[in-house]
């Protein structure tokens, strides 16, 4: 991999130094097949000022503990939660720290077939030599089993139920039979193998998970960021990163950012800071979506309107980016605009602008 031009490097490269330092300082016992001890994995993710390890995951330390312990057992780890809550990041960090390799990934989708979880064939070799070890193309999961590493499956619920079923025997037997290579031929998982899956249980188009499969996973829910100040910072930071790609660098004014983050938090939690109740829409109101809206609003203001970004731009983009075409959600947004936004608009100009534009939509 060319580390200079790649858009994004895997975690074990990005944090190679930190991992090396942790490994040197690690004196605690390691489970078989693990690169680091459980405590060192925890330090890698939650940070350790002594070894200059940065904190990479915020908000829920006991969750990280539970994830690490889950991976030490026989069950897989299933990370669930709304989109945009850093499930994939956590899975990548865990794989990088425990196996030193976060690239054994299967990206779940409707197009995934069983072969993607087990193995396929190099058909040219298969025709030339017949089934042989050389002609077999292992899946990331098979590779992980052979090497005693962690396999990652992203968006498991997007796979068809029969593909998910393949995971059941794989997780309970920890073996993949390769009958083409001869009777009794199979790959048994080396110690250290386990699976981290991420899933979204609420999205449309996600398949239901069978209870047999559920039993083979320990579930951990990654929640949205609870601290409003931190969320605001995170949105500002990520929007600035995205805008860095363009020549112009418009800044989102503070009051507009406040409106944006408040709207998302109110609608996500169903409760405003002052205790008023809000009907929660079905649409995903995650931090990641807030960044999308902020990004779109900035682009709208800068390139189309050529004006200072305002809460009116946020209101305009909110419809398109978040409230796509669900009538019920539109109703809930209208109720929010009619009551909360309107009341706040009486004493705050940004909210007034938001209310005016959202109302006229």
């Amino acid at each position, binding site marked *: 991999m060319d580390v200079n031009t790649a858009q994004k490097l895997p975690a074990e490269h990005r944090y190679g130094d930190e991992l090396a330092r942790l490994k040197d300082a690690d004196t605690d016992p390691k489970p078989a097949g693990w690169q680091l001890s459980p405590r060192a994995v925890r330090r890698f993710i939650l940070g350790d000022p002594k070894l200059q390890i940065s904190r990479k995951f915020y908000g829920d*330390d*006991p969750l990280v503990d539970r994830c690490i312990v*889950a991976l030490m*057992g026989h*069950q897989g780890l299933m990370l669930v939660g709304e989109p945009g809550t850093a499930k994939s990041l956590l899975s990548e960090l865990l794989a990088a720290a425990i196996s030193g390799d976060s690239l054994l990934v299967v990206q779940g989708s409707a197009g995934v077939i069983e072969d993607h979880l087990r193995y396929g064939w190099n058909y040219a070799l298969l025709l030339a030599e017949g089934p042989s070890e050389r002609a077999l193309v292992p899946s990331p999961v098979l590779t992980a089993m052979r090497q005693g590493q962690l396999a990652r499956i992203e968006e498991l619920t997007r796979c068809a139920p029969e593909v998910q079923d393949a995971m059941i025997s794989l997780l309970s037997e920890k073996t993949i039979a390769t009958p083409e290579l001869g009777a009794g031929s199979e790959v048994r998982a080396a110690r250290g193998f386990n699976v981290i899956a991420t899933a979204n249980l609420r999205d449309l188009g996600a398949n239901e998970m069978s209870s047999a499969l559920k039993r083979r996973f*320990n*579930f*951990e829910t990654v*929640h949205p960021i609870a601290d409003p100040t931190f969320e605001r910072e995170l949105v500002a930071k990520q929007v600035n990163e995205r805008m860095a790609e363009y020549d112009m660098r418009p800044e989102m004014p503070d009051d507009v950012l406040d409106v944006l983050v408040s709207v998302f938090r109110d609608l996500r939690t169903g409760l405003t800071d002052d205790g008023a109740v809000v009907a929660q829409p079905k649409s995903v109101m995650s931090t990641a979506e807030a960044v999308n809206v902020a990004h779109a609003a900035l682009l709208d203001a800068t390139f189309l309107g050529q004006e200072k970004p305002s809460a009116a731009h946020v209101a305009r983009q909110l419809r398109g980016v978040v409230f796509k075409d669900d009538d019920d959600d539109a109703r809930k947004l209208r109720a929010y605009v009619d009551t909360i936004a309107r009341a706040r608009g009486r004493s705050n100009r940004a909210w007034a602008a938001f209310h005016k534009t959202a109302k006229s939509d």
Partner: protein
Amino acid sequence: MLDETLIRTVRDGLFQPDQDIYIAPIRHHSPACAWAVQQMIRDLKPTQVLIEAPHDLTPLIPHLLDGDTSPPVAIASLLDREDGPRLAAYYPFCDHSPEWVALHEGTAIGAQLQFIDLGSDTKLLDSEPSSTRPNLMVQEHHFDSGDYVRALARKLGCRDGYELWDHLFETRIGGGDWRSFLSDVGSYCAGLRAATPTATLAQSGDTQREAHMAACLNIARKNMDGPIVVVVGGFHAPALLTPKETAGKTRPLRKSAAQSYLIRYGYRELDALMGYGAGLPQPGYYQSLWDHAQSQDGTPDWPEAAHDLIQAFAARMRTQGHGISVPAQTELLRSAQLLAQMRGRPGALRHDLIDGVKTALLKGESTGSDVWNERFLTFLQGHKMGQVSSGAGQPPIVADIRARARALRFDLGDARMRTRHLDIRRKPAHLAASRFAHAVTLLGCDFARRTAGPDFVNHVQTNLLFEDWEYAWSPRVEGQLIEAARFGDTLPAACRGYLAQARQELAEQGSAGDLHALLDLFKRGLLAGLGAELADFITQIEAAIRASGDFAQTAKAVCTLHAIQASRGPLSLPTGLAIAPLMQAAYARLIYLCDDLPNAREDALPPALDALRMLAELLRGPGGGDFDVSLFDAALDRVVSADPAAEIHGAVMAIAVQACRHSTEQLAAVLRGQFNGSDPDLATRMGGLRGMLWIAPSLLWSGQEILSAVDDFLTGLDEDGFLEILPHLRLALSALSPREADRLAQDLAGRHGGKTRDFTAHHHDIDAASAARGGALEARLRQTLQKDGLLNWVTGTAPQTPKESA
């Protein structure tokens, strides 16, 4: 003093063999501390044991030690004040309270026992009475908040002060070296104290309390030789190292004005997280830890302790019908133990077990209030209830209610039934008596029964001015009050407790969001005079409103809330309790739910129509000014454009006509459109008319357009069609009152050129014999009247043919 120096001073000064004084710094209800205190007393065999508890409670020690008393129990102290409500506070004990252990171990070796804190009256006056929870004489907020605890917790990877405490100290339960354990608790508490500003100490009354305890210690030292053990909250230990300096000129053991009683207590109340207790949360868990240490007579077998606990949990769940599979139990224990290992603990502690439950039992997305998590926390809380020896006196609530009843001039002299006639709207004293009676009734106590007067809860005859009550005080009443003592120690507190439980029961029945039931309870609370103390109720009602999906129920809630808001009688709101925001929230929710009207199911139509009528009346009336009516209008316009059921369409249009937003012509056009529509079912074609009549029957005759639309429709029907529609027509017109029906009949008759009388039904199925009999009867009657000279008087000026009407 430098923090480090302070810590060293504490470590060196806790045990002073030269003075024969040994200080045990403890945390309330901590089994590890209780263990250390037990070892310490057995080891030192002191002649005196001094305990940090109000000194005026010392006479209750024999009751505490009585064989019939079993924890959890509490001492309740009451203080009557002239310038304010009576104050009450509790001092709880459980099996694993260091104070409880100190009392029993001290007695066992024949030591003299004494409580040394300031009198409970001073503590009561110092404490800020809270409206939502019982007041405690044990304060331990230092352990769970503050920069020191937060920083230390972060450093050790613990999520809060509770986990930190468990991690540092409860892991050491059963250890043989009580000296080093207590020294470490002392150091920890010295750290807490160093992070607390001196001003805060003086403000919270701690300085005064410490002076008192030190003075007691000095006296004890003077009075008797031999070792003294002082069991004291760790936070105060540093002040007792030099009792002479701390005491100054304090004169201890002043007489206390408070009354104290020993009462039964429960683990629910003891749980620090329930907002009642101090000490550690989930006492059931710590009890099991204590029991394990006791049965091992030393360090508990940690894996076995965790195993037993999970087994007991699984068994409990099985009896409740929620079995936990063996693999899940194994996984739970495995995760808990590995977590403990990773976090550097000898065995799975409370938080490790809770995490284990999350990992092993939760399948799917966690929502923050997961059922397994809740079940486990409830299990850890335990449900033990204490016993109190019979000689220990009467619970405070009985005394409180008797005092209140006497002050309100209820005669409690004997058990005879008496009556009260209360002028609740004009005499404040009578209103207070009414509230008292309502409150006692709320507690489920048969003291009083309302025999007449307004019924605000069911909204019946609310305009009546007087209330009549029957009442009698009996042993049965007393028994019921002792039952109700678990809700609180005073009448208002007990009512609060009762309402809290009623709400919890609603939640357990799965109807936490039942707006009607919640508002009922709220009204009963208002009638009982709870007033501003109902504030937390509002939060729950607000949540129910937020979750409400029922248009009719929400509309009713808006009307009820508005009625309460506008009420000036016994239901009136006290200052400080604002329900206007709640009412607005309900209104906002209602506007939101309006968009469901077009999709309402057929069986939901009548309540929805009723609700629309109520709302229309409310918003058109004087109450309309409290709401933003334009939102309702806009919502109704959306309903119209979303092709609703015919009834809703007619009703909504009728509201718009009444509000002068639409003309009667528009409504007539809608009705005509439905009448002349292609729906094969005639009943459906009349839906709009039904809806309109439901909301505003008067529209039928107030504008000619509507009447002619209806008339045209009916006259256009053939005989069969008319017969088919007749039942529906009668149903639709049944919304009219007799006067309205009469009025309509006149109008209709006028349209078709006649008088109402012309259309009056006549019966023609009288046979000849009956007619002859009737004729004869009439003739006789006429004769009699004529004989009496009354004929003209009866028939007026001209004789008339009597009607043969039905």
